[in-house]
C-alpha cells in the first residue's frame, strides 16, 4: 500500500514537472516570436529573416526521403510554406498530411543566383541521381521529377531572375525547432 502511494506521488511529481517544462517551452517560444500567417508569408518573410517565428497551417505534403521537409498551406494550395526539420525535430511523418500544425522555428532565406542555377543545371545533366539538388516546391510528385522537368524549372527560374531585375531570387522557409499537431 505504502509503495503504491509513493509510486502515485512520484508519478504526479514527474508528470507536473514535465508539464511545467512544456509550459516553459511554450513561454520561451512566445517571447520575441513573430506570429506569421501562411497567406501573407511571402510578402512579410523578408522582414523577419533569421528571426524566431510561429506559423499555423495544414500539412499539404511531407518529403518521403527521411521526412526532413514538409509544406503547409491554409485553405488553398496557391501559397505553400516550406518547413525544414531543425536539429530537435526528428522527422515529419507522412501521416501528418492533412493535419493542422503549429510550427515554431527560425525563418531562413535561400538565395538563388545565376551561378547557383548554372551549377544546378550541371548537376541535373549528370547521369547520377540528383533529387537533392535545387529548389523544393512541394508540388505533387516533385520528388519524382525527371531531368526534363528539372531543366524546365531551371529555365523558368532564369526567366524570373531576369524579370526581377535583381542579381538573385529569394526563397523563404522555416527551420522548425518544434511543432505541434492541433486537434
Amino acid at each position, binding site marked *: 500500500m505504502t509503495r503504491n502511494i509513493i509510486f502515485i506521488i512520484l508519478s504526479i511529481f514527474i508528470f507536473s514537472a514535465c508539464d511545467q517544462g512544456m509550459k516553459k517551452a511554450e513561454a520561451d517560444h512566445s517571447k520575441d516570436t513573430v506570429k506569421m500567417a501562411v497567406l501573407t508569408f511571402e510578402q512579410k518573410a523578408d522582414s523577419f529573416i533569421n528571426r524566431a517565428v510561429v506559423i499555423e497551417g495544414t500539412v499539404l505534403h511531407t518529403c518521403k526521403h527521411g521526412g526532413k521537409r514538409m509544406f503547409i498551406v491554409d485553405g488553398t494550395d496557391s501559397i505553400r510554406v516550406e518547413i525544414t526539420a531543425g536539429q530537435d525535430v526528428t*522527422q515529419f511523418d*507522412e501521416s501528418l498530411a492533412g493535419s493542422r500544425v503549429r510550427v515554431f522555428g527560425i525563418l531562413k532565406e535561400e538565395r538563388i543566383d545565376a551561378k547557383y542555377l548554372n551549377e544546378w543545371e550541371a548537376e541535373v545533366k549528370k547521369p547520377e541521381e540528383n533529387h537533392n539538388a535545387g529548389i523544393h516546391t512541394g508540388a505533387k510528385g516533385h520528388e519524382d521529377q525527371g531531368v526534363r522537368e528539372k531543366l524546365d524549372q531551371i529555365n523558368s527560374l532564369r526567366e524570373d531572375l531576369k524579370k526581377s531585375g535583381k542579381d538573385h531570387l529569394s526563397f523563404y522557409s522555416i527551420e522548425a525547432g518544434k511543432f505541434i499537431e492541433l486537434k
Partner: protein
Amino acid sequence: MQRKTLRRWNNALHRDIGYLCVGMTIIYAISGIILNHFKSGDFTHPDYSKSYREFKVAIPPKGIADKTYVFSVLDQLHEKDHFKSFITGENYVQIFLDKGYVYIDLKNGEAEMEIKTTRYVIKEFNLLHYNNIKKMYTWFSDLYAVALIILAITGLFVLRGKNGIIGRGAWLTAIGILLPALFLLYYM
C-alpha cells in the same frame, strides 16, 4: 599461458557482445535492405504501402468545392468518419483522410483515392535505422556501432590454427576488405 587467457577473454567478449548485438543487427539489416531498394525506387514509401482507386464524382455547383460538397463525396465513399481536412487548388480539391486522400479534378469530376496502410514493424525498424528518435538513442546506436567494431576485431582471433587468422581466416578477411574496395574502384 598468458596467450591462452587472452584468447579466452577474446572469445568470451566475442560471444557475449554477439548475443547482445543480435537484435540490433537484424533490425539494421532488414531496414537496410528496404531503404536500399526505396532509394533505388522500388518502394514509393518504405513505411507505407499505398493503393489507388479511380472513379468519377459529380462536379460541385459553379465548380466551387466547399465543406458540403466535400462531405457529400465522402458520404458516397463511406469515408465520412475518416475526414481530416481539405484544401482547394486550381480546378481541384484534395480531401485528406486518416489513411490517405481523395483528389478530385473539378473540371471533369475524375477522382483518385489513395489508401495508405502502415507497414508496422518495418516502419519502426526504419525509424531506428534513420535515427529519427535522436535523444538517448543516438548514444545507444553509437554504442552498438562500437560493439560491432569489437565484434569484428575479436572475431579475427576466435580460432587458432589453419582455420584461424594466420590460415584460411586471413584469406576470407582479405576478400571481405577487397570486395568493397573493388566496388569503389569500379564505380568511382
